[in-house]
């Protein structure tokens, strides 16, 4: 008897949920999104860019977002769920280039347009629009080693061990390192792309008193500068990403020489644009579109002027300042900050 009652109430709840699902705004396309890192500033900006672009395009009726912390197998599950949801296109930030091949292949077979953003995938039928991660590391590291005068000790603060973006960046870093034989790595640590963890690591490193001539970070940058200032350690050149906090520090912290390499999270918006173009029959010439990084430094007057133009204190310090990509995104700054998709 008790069980009957409960089943009935559950049924009622489900019917309610179903009606919510069905009442989404009418429109042309449904786009599915799959992302496997939650609670990271860059990824959150990527998701917001996707939502904002979907809204700004006016072509998207509904976004189906699978956004959680999981691995390649979990992303396969999400992709298959999106296939079951019969979306028109899937924009995916892959957990692994090869690991989700089977799911992407099934999606293509089901007639779904697949666009991978941020990182490449091995599935040949998928379109790719990505930041060039190897180039990102190479550009920053080369600039840093030049600032160090081609010699000395560098602190190498990587991302998450085993993540493919990290290993791509490692390739670029090693390439630059090979060009400067007198530069040595004083210590190599994995920050896991976590602010608190990186701060602990830099503080314990500074406590050892090991002299260094430069710091390369994989995008966890403003806490490093904070630590140098707090500990009154000698300022050394720091390379980071174009996160709002760090970019602000480059113009405000006295004695800090550094460079921000762009790694726009708005690539997500570009992915949505690419998917919509393909759905509308405008296929790009190549399967892969690479967005090349830029480097903004404060060592030259020319660089300072450039930095001044991009500083944006209104953004959260972990968000990249490059909130749009010319030709690829059409939303306004307000739209991405609002972080609302169609129907929300």
């Amino acid at each position: 008897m008790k069980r009957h009652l409960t089943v009935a109430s559950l049924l009622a709840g489900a019917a309610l949920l179903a009606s919510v699902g069905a009442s989404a705004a009418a429109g042309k396309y449904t786009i599915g999104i799959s992302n496997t890192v939650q609670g990271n500033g860059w990824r959150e900006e990527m998701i917001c860019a996707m939502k904002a672009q979907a809204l700004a395009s006016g072509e998207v009726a509904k976004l189906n977002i699978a956004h959680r912390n999981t691995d390649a197998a979990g992303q396969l599950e999400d992709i298959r769920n999106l296939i079951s949801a019969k979306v028109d296109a899937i924009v995916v930030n892959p957990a692994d280039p090869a690991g989700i091949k089977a799911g992407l292949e099934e999606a293509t077979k089901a007639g779904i347009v697949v666009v991978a953003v941020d990182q490449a995938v091995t599935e040949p039928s998928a379109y790719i629009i990505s930041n060039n991660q190897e180039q990102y590391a190479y550009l920053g590291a080369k600039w840093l080693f030049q600032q160090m005068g081609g010699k000395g000790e560098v602190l190498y603060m990587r991302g998450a061990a085993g993540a493919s973006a990290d290993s791509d960046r490692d390739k670029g870093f090693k390439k630059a390192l090979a060009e400067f034989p007198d530069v040595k790595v004083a210590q190599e640590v994995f920050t896991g792309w976590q602010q608190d963890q990186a701060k602990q690591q830099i503080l314990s490193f500074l406590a050892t008193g090991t002299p260094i001539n430069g710091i390369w970070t994989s995008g966890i940058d403003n806490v490093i500068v904070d630590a140098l200032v707090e500990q009154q350690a000698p300022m050394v050149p720091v390379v980071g990403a174009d996160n709002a906090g760090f970019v602000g520090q480059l113009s405000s912290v006295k004695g800090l020489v550094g460079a921000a390499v762009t790694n726009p999270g708005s690539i997500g918006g570009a992915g949505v644009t690419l998917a919509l173009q393909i759905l509308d029959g405008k296929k790009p010439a190549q399967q892969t579109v690479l967005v090349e990084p830029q480097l903004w430094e404060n060592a030259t007057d020319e660089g300072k002027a450039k930095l001044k133009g991009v500083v944006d204190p209104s953004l959260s310090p972990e968000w990249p300042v490059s909130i749009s990509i010319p030709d690829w995104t059409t939303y306004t700054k307000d739209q991405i900050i609002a972080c609302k998709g169609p129907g929300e």
Partner: protein
Amino acid sequence: MSRFLRNQGWVAGLFALLIFVFVVTKLIQPGYGSGDFGSLARAVLPYAFAVAAQTVVVIAGGIDLSVAAMMALTSVTAASMMNGASEEYALFVVPFVLAMGLVLGALNGVLIVVTRVPDIVVTLAMLFVLQGAALLVLGAPGGAAAEWLKASVVGTAPIPSLPDWADAWVPKALVLLVICLCIVWIPLRRSRLGLSIYAIGSDELAAFRSGVPVARTRIVAYALSGLFAAMGGLSLTISTGIGAPIPGPYLLASVAAVVLGGVALGGGKGGLLGPIIAVFVLRLVRTDLTLLAIDPNVTAIIEGAIMVAVVMFGAFITIRGRPVGATP
């Protein structure tokens, strides 16, 4: 009948819940069919093995925090061994990796028994060790899987006696899961060893007095957990075609499914079927949330709320159903 309900009621209730969620899925997405069920079975695979690994030790009165790390290590080991190797070589890799899980699991058990350090500490330490070892094997996701292995979870299993429409609902992944679990579990359930595992989890002193070799049984339970975790690791490699050194979200998911599956965290109670059905329920709920395009930041809350609601409801029923006035 009343005893059947008391012993199997939880499983029966979960099964009803699964059917119910299935009906809901069909309502949300009328096109949900056999192909989608195949996807579900494949998604369930690694979770199911993780939860089997956890179930064995929880029944024995312990807990294993190293399940996910064990899966990562066995997965990268399999993927790196099969990388560039012949198809036949995989015939060696599979038993090798399974044996590795068994041995590492037994090591967990031996450490707990010999050092007398609480299981939660030993397996936590093991979590870090295995995680580090996985990164040593493969610094970044990579490796490969033999094609025949990958094919073993794709499509449906041809069962001659079944009509096509029914056969479509028997995905290979499900068949693989059932075979792997049954091959270990059914003989275990029918043996003195299996009873001993329940016994040490239920009442260690009584088990000792009944002549159960408590230490040895505990080691075996952890070894079996390692074996199931290795199956889980292999299933990860098979379904993704790579090995990833960073453990996935399987540890907490395994504990959640164990609880939802009616296995008492104190040990001694429950079976394998409940937790496996619980995994299906949890995965299908995840599917529904995706189909409904629920705000992703809300989905975790909904999943958690469903779990708490079901477990509380179950506890309520159990208390209400307890025989009163039990006197001779």
